[in-house]
């Protein structure tokens, strides 16, 4: 019996959210994630859940805010320019300690940019993005099957830590179709009680959800509570994949679609007897700094690959002490580095290393 289903990345985000118990979705069209909004418009109604095509991304994220404070799992999705519009709302979600899942299918920028795949929103996603002292967990799937694995994790993290969580993909992942094992669709959701939800004060005291703290010291109390939570997330929720052997002379660090391409590069080089390892952060925040340091310790030569200017590159440099040689290759504006240009770069790096020796 055929146990595999074909999904595009965009549809996969939608179906995975539905399986994860997402009761509310609001979205505004933007390429390259339109299929996700379209998918939800059909499937959410089939499931008897709520779908709203909002008037803007500002409305989307604030609708998610309203659904979340009602105690249900809620999601919105967009692509880079729309995610910029949502930053105020994400900051309010963080300040009000409300769970939410936000999918960003990244495209080239700045400005209207283009509609091609890009990873240029790394800083925006991993540094908070909006105003104020906050962070959001960021999960970066590399494939359609992994979307089915990480979307439930995103909803769990959101509920567990009462925080917005970003699912970060790009136009390539959103548009690409891949087979998915039916088993991956059997997700068991952990249910988190939400006694803080606003459901009317029947049989309890009235409750309030807000982010305004005017009394001296009151806001810092919230800030400290959030920081403590962020430290716990950093300790407990790091995810990564490492593909390393003792023979490796170089380690690639890449995430999402870029890691997928790196895997092709590694395979091709292997046939030429050149051994290269891969370290793939799956959570971009918390960044797997310790894990990278451990994985890289025997190698010392690092190549960071990104579909953007050096952004994750900064986190790699922060993670690794001096003594590592950290190089970078990236393309911007929606251009995806080809296997050939990466292979050429790696060969050049290895050659210069031999010369140094």
């Amino acid at each position, binding site marked *: 019996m055929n146990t595999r289903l074909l999904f595009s990345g965009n549809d996969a985000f939608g179906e995975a959210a539905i399986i994860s118990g997402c*009761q*509310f979705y*609001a979205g505004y069209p933007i390429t390259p994630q339109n299929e996700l909004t379209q998918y939800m418009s059909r499937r959410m109604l089939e499931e008897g859940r*709520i779908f*709203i095509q*909002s*008037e*803007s991304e*500002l*409305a*989307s994220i*604030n*609708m*998610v*805010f*309203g*659904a979340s*404070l*009602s*105690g*249900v799992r*809620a999601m919105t999705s967009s692509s880079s320019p729309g995610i910029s519009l949502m930053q*105020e*709302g994400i900051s*309010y979600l963080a300040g*009000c300690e409300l769970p939410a899942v936000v999918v960003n299918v990244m495209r080239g920028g700045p400005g209207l940019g283009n509609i091609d795949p890009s990873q240029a929103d790394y800083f925006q996603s991993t540094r908070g993005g909006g105003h104020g002292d906050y962070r959001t967990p960021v999960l970066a799937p590399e494939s359609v099957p992994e979307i089915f694995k990480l979307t439930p994790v995103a909803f769990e993290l959101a509920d567990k830590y009462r925080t917005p969580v970003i699912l970060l993909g790009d136009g390539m992942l959103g548009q690409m179709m891949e087979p998915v094992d039916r088993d991956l669709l059997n997700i068991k959701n952990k249910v988190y009680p939400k006694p803080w939800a*606003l*459901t*009317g*004060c*029947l*049989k309890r005291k*009235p*409750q*309030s*959800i*807000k*982010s*305004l703290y005017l009394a001296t010291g009151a806001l810092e109390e919230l800030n400290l509570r959030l920081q403590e939570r962020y430290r716990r997330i950093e300790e407990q929720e790091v995810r990564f994949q490492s593909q390393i052997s003792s023979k490796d002379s170089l380690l690639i660090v890449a995430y999402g679609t870029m890691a997928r391409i790196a895997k092709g590069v590694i395979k091709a080089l292997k046939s030429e007897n050149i051994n290269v390892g891969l370290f793939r952060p799956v959570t971009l925040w918390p960044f797997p700094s310790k894990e990278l340091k451990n994985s890289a310790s025997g190698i010392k030569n690092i190549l960071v690959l990104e579909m953007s200017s050096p952004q994750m590159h900064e986190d790699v440099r922060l993670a690794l002490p001096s003594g590592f040689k950290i190089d970078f290759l990236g393309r911007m504006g929606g251009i995806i580095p080809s296997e050939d240009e990466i292979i050429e770069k790696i060969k050049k790096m290895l050659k210069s290393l031999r010369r140094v020796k």
Partner: protein
Amino acid sequence: MKVLYKRPYALNDIQTHYCSGCGHGIIHRLVAEVIDELQIREKTIAIAPVGCAVLAYDYWNFDTTEAAHGRPLAVATAIKRVQPDKIVFTYQGDGDLAAIGTNETIHAACRGENLTVVFVNNGVYGMTGGQMAPTTVLSQKTTTTLSGRERSIHGYPLPLLEMLKVLEGVFYLERRSLFSPSEVKKSKQALLTAFQNQIENKGFSMVEILSPCPTYSKMKPVENLKWIEKEVIKTYPLGRVK
């Protein structure tokens, strides 16, 4: 002894932070009275704006939240869709509802969301220091229209209810004021209707209340009320708009 007048149960017994003569306190109370009378306190969820009324939740004895500036109607839309059995209302100033949040206002109205909106039109941005609001009437002085609002520089005042009137999704629109005890009563009646409509699933209902802001109108409270009665209602006629 018979009690003729007491604090509504839905209103908390706390000290006010509003300036003397401000209309927000009266309107908070009217909302609380209506909620008591309709016996909906235990299933009400209110959305406070960003503006002077951001602290509305300190005064009300029911579930409350605070939306980003201008976004209460997006938040309210989702709460009501997720919890259709609850009574959901927004309480918004003119800057919140008719400037930064105009888009959310129009689209919630156009979708015909079954919500109640309390729209407090005090003609200025109170919280940020009395700047011009979209509703500021022509020749009114504010901290950003020092010699009075002039159409060639600042544009015209925004008649929001008249704009919303044409939308199919809108069920009830009424404009009232607070300049006399009988007007206060009429405001309460309009609020009662707007909440009753939601209970009866009739759809989007908004009550605009012309409200005094003596601090930034640079008028004494009574003078401010008289000015609304004589001048402001020329731009914003009272009554049922839809």
